[in-house]
């Protein structure tokens, strides 16, 4: 009886341990704000951030910004990601496509997407297409490179086996090569999802009429540090959400993989 309750509380302690430090920091932050050690110009108290979030949520303003930003992020991801996937599959599968394209793409890869901002503003102005372009170029390369390497790293023995069992062309691709490359492709997707938000944040703070970035830059002009913090926390939450999504995707698509299987009871 006592043994089970001890193990139960132990398990709870283990589950709560990761949250101990953030909670302590939060308490210290709140205390130092309350005691006047921390000016609201530098950092508002946590409660003020919560209040700001509440008012923004009630007025509905925040949802509109979140929706705008999410739409930009996802459309950019869809465009850049699918291009990266298609080109990665192409260069990974065909030697001729590799010699033709790969060195050029590897060269372009070394240019940070954000270095293109001046050029992008000249090309697209400051409207939506500029942001989509930046996000798309940013997410393109992680997916492209990981797809390429995924295809190349597919077990040659499996391909040989499948060929000797009469598979060729599209069936070979669908049953052997694509699933074999999938773990690597998903690594690229996860990288890209992280990068997607980083690029969007920068793009939105430069010029926008809506979106989370616009909201924070606007708040900065009025010294509303609490709203700025709400924006930052929103980015953190959305980033975490994207990460959870890609993790769930991996769990589902790679459920055959020993690394994603719960150890069998013996």
């Amino acid at each position, binding site marked *: 009886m006592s043994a089970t309750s001890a193990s139960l509380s132990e398990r709870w302690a283990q589950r709560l341990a990761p949250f101990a430090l953030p909670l302590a920091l939060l308490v210290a932050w709140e205390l130092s704000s309350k005691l006047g050690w921390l000016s609201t110009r530098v950092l508002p108290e946590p409660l003020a951030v919560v209040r700001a979030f509440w008012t923004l949520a009630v007025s509905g303003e925040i949802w509109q910004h979140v929706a705008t930003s999410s739409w930009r992020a996802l459309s950019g991801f869809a465009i850049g990601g699918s291009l990266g996937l298609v080109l990665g599959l192409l260069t990974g599968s065909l030697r001729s496509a590799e010699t033709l394209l790969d060195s050029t793409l590897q060269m372009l890869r070394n240019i940070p997407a954000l270095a293109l901002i001046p050029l992008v503003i000249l090309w697209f102005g400051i409207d939506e297409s500029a942001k989509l372009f930046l996000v798309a170029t940013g997410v393109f390369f992680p997916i492209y490179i990981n797809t390429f390497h995924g295809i190349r790293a597919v077990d040659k*023995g*499996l391909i*040989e*086996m*499948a*060929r*000797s*069992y*009469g*598979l060729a062309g599209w069936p070979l691709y669908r*049953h*052997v090569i694509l*699933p*074999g490359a*999938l773990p690597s492709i998903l690594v690229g997707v996860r990288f890209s999802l992280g990068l997607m938000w980083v690029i969007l944040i920068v793009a939105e703070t430069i010029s926008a009429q809506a979106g989370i970035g616009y909201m924070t830059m606007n708040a900065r002009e009025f010294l509303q540090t609490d709203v700025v913090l709400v924006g930052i926390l929103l980015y953190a939450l959305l980033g975490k959400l994207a990460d959870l999504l890609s993790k769930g995707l991996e769990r589902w698509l*790679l*459920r*055959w*993989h*020993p690394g994603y*299987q719960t150890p*069998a009871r013996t």
Partner: protein
Amino acid sequence: MHPYELELEAAAIGALTPVTRDAARAAHTITKAPLRLLEPRAPSGSAVDAQGLSKSYGAREVLRDIDLRIAPGEFVALVGRSGCGKSTLLRLLAGLEAADAGRIAFDGATQATSPNGHRADTRIMFQDARLLPWKRVLDNVALGLSSKDATQRALDALAQVGLADRADEWPAVLSGGQRQRVALARALVHTPRLLLLDEPLGALDALTRIEMQRLIEGLWQRHGFTAVLVTHDVGEAIALADRVLLIEDHRIALDQRVSLPRPRSRGQAAFAQHEERLLDRVLQQPSHDTRAETPEEFPVAASALRWAV
């Protein structure tokens, strides 16, 4: 040309191993129509006639001018030291690689040895099971089947190797022996007339090996396909094969018929005799320099030597 008298008569079909009996029972409970689609067809085995096969990798010669004839339904084992080229010979038969010279005829029909010449009635089992880890066991067995009854046939094949109850598992959770049994089922589902086995039992523990040997022997007797087994285990070769070929110095150095009645037991005196003789022969491979460089005549004129007497 010598006749290929088969020792099949001695091998009663009823000599089912425990494994296959389990398989039959499992098939009955699951499919209700056990082993219907995989019943042996006649004529079952391919005849293989290879002539003048040579293969080199760069400067390294592996096989030189190999002639090999295998009768329909015969079980042939290729033995030899590692790196002797026995696996290469099997890969040539499988069409996985092209020979530099020579021709292989199946059932009398000669065909060019091209790497794309995969024959629908030839199946190969590799040393590693090579199951697709992202497909469940049943889908692995059904790989390459397109007919409507593919699932049923795959289930039947799984039942024959005693794994019908694992059909929905991922390959990752199976043991090494179970994976090889799935690979065997995957080969059998195509009702091959020539089954090539590339050291499929090499990585298994001793007990699993014996179990697998009995399973392979039982299925071979049932279906009557021609089998070529590459192995480094002389005992395994004697236990299974009608003929044991020793590959040495790029060629077939020994072609020994094993006429022991089946099922063979390692306890038999004749078995041990066969095994010992073959093992001795494999191990006594003379080193190259003593044999090749025996001088026929004194290479240096006697007058050119300085005598230190």
